[in-house]
């Protein structure tokens, strides 16, 4: 019984990371129609920046604040310098440039930090275990899940309770029309892109001590994040929540129950959803 609980909690922690990455990805795709292949490299950079910062300061909380800010700036630069310039040539060029950036960043990471895994440890309360229904469970995984919940709640409040939220949701429907109504849409794009990069970077910072930090970590999670936004429906935050939980738990229980099938389960789920509802669970029918 306890085994199930442990795997369930593992699933929640992974779902938390997936949500932090895919929520930005889905908003960017919903608005700008750009599937950002470099999105998960922001997650990887978050982990590596944090690694270096921890070596010098040994202050995890500083990392939590500083690394996402750095990635916000990097995200804004990528949007301004690369995406905006190729925008006039259409989506294929935008897709290709993010693909290229992902390669360059990954190679850059290998060059700077080396092509091998790095380990991070976390001390203090976050490094402890806590007793849940008689099972000792690491506090850190619960912390990851709570971070995602907190971010999710803040995002939902912004999206559904503020004017900015109305603009963002409208831009997912039709960004050109939003522009024609007097909203500086290019600036909104930069902001959303940068915010998505910061969230992805934040996920990297908190994933660092849990998973291994290595140059392949971006690709590992990118596929799952893509599945999340397809299953949840492009542009839907609610969809990202539900799909992250589904994929997180599926990955976790897949390993426990069907170890030989576990890799394929995610794709089976995606195929099933696409057959039944091609726009994703919460996607708008076009």
């Amino acid at each position, binding site marked *: 019984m306890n085994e199930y609980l442990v795997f369930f909690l593992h699933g929640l922690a992974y779902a938390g990371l997936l949500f932090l990455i895919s929520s930005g990805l889905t908003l960017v795709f919903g608005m700008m129609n750009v599937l950002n292949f470099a999105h998960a490299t922001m997650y990887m950079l978050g982990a590596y920046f944090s690694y270096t910062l921890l070596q010098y300061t040994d202050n995890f909380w500083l990392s939590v604040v500083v690394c996402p800010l750095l990635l916000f700036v990097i995200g804004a630069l990528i949007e301004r310098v690369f995406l905006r310039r190729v925008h006039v040539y259409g989506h294929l060029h935008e897709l290709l440039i993010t693909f290229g950036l992902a390669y360059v960043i990954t190679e850059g990471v290998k060059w700077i930090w080396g092509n091998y895994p790095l380990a991070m440890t976390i001390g203090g309360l976050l490094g402890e275990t806590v007793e849940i229904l008689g099972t000792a469970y690491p506090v850190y995984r619960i912390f990851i899940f709570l971070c995602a919940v907190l971010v999710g709640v803040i995002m939902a409040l912004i999206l559904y309770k503020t004017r900015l939220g*109305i603009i963002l*949701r409208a831009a997912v429907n*039709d960004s*050109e*029309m*939003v*522009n024609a*109504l007097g909203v*500086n849409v290019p600036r909104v794009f930069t902001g959303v892109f940068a915010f998505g990069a910061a969230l992805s970077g934040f996920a990297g910072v908190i994933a660092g001590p849990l998973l291994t930090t290595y140059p392949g970590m971006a690709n590992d999670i990118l596929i799952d994040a893509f599945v999340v936004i397809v299953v949840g429906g492009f542009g839907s935050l609610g969809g990202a929540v539900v799909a992250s939980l589904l994929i997180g738990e599926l990955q976790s229980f897949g390993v426990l129950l069907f170890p030989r099938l576990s890799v394929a389960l995610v794709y089976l789920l995606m195929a099933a959803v696409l057959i039944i509802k091609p726009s994703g669970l919460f996607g*708008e029918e076009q």
Partner: protein
Amino acid sequence: MLEVRDIHTYYGKSHILQGVDMNLKEGEIVCLLGRNGVGKSTTLKSIMGLVKPRQGSIRFRDEEITGLEPFEIARRGVGYVPEDRRIFRSLTVHENLLMGIKETKGHGGRNGWTVEAIYEKFPRLRERKDSKGGHLSGGEQQMLTIARTLTGNPSLILVDEPTEGLAPLIVRDVIDMLAEVRQGGVTVLMVEQNFKAAIKIADRFYIMGKGHIVFEGDTQALLAAEDVRKNYLEV
């Protein structure tokens, strides 16, 4: 208030507008007629900045607006009501109206169209306040698109085929609504296929042939110019 001088607009290599000229005075309703594919919608999109003319000049209230981003043109007081409505489907009617309100108090802002004023004038929208935009009927969506533009207090609105695909009874509602808008002091430039509907409210007409203006005149002149109507309008 709006002067369009010799604009040339391309989609890729196709030369859609081949030197369009147009003039609008404050408070007019002007109707742009013509067959499908002659560049009527492209003319409106060029004025709004949604496509950029390669050549020529567009002046709005004595300011050059050619080459500006759509949001900058909107903030100067131009409203755009697109073809096929383009309601924000996942937003409620109320949120759609809020979207129209501009952040910067710009040059427009004098006609006093608040969301409340919209509900007063068009009670049907109040009834459907909390419905999702995507759940409205075609006529309601058309009213909402026009109303959404009005909350931004434009002094000129560009309306693309407002009666397309609507039942005759609804067409009358939409035409009445546009007349009401003009009463409030807003200048209207509309593209229309429905000649009968247009002739009820428009003060002046332009007719487009392939990428050019081929006729300009008021209702009398249009009714008199039988050959133009035969050659350039579908009857």
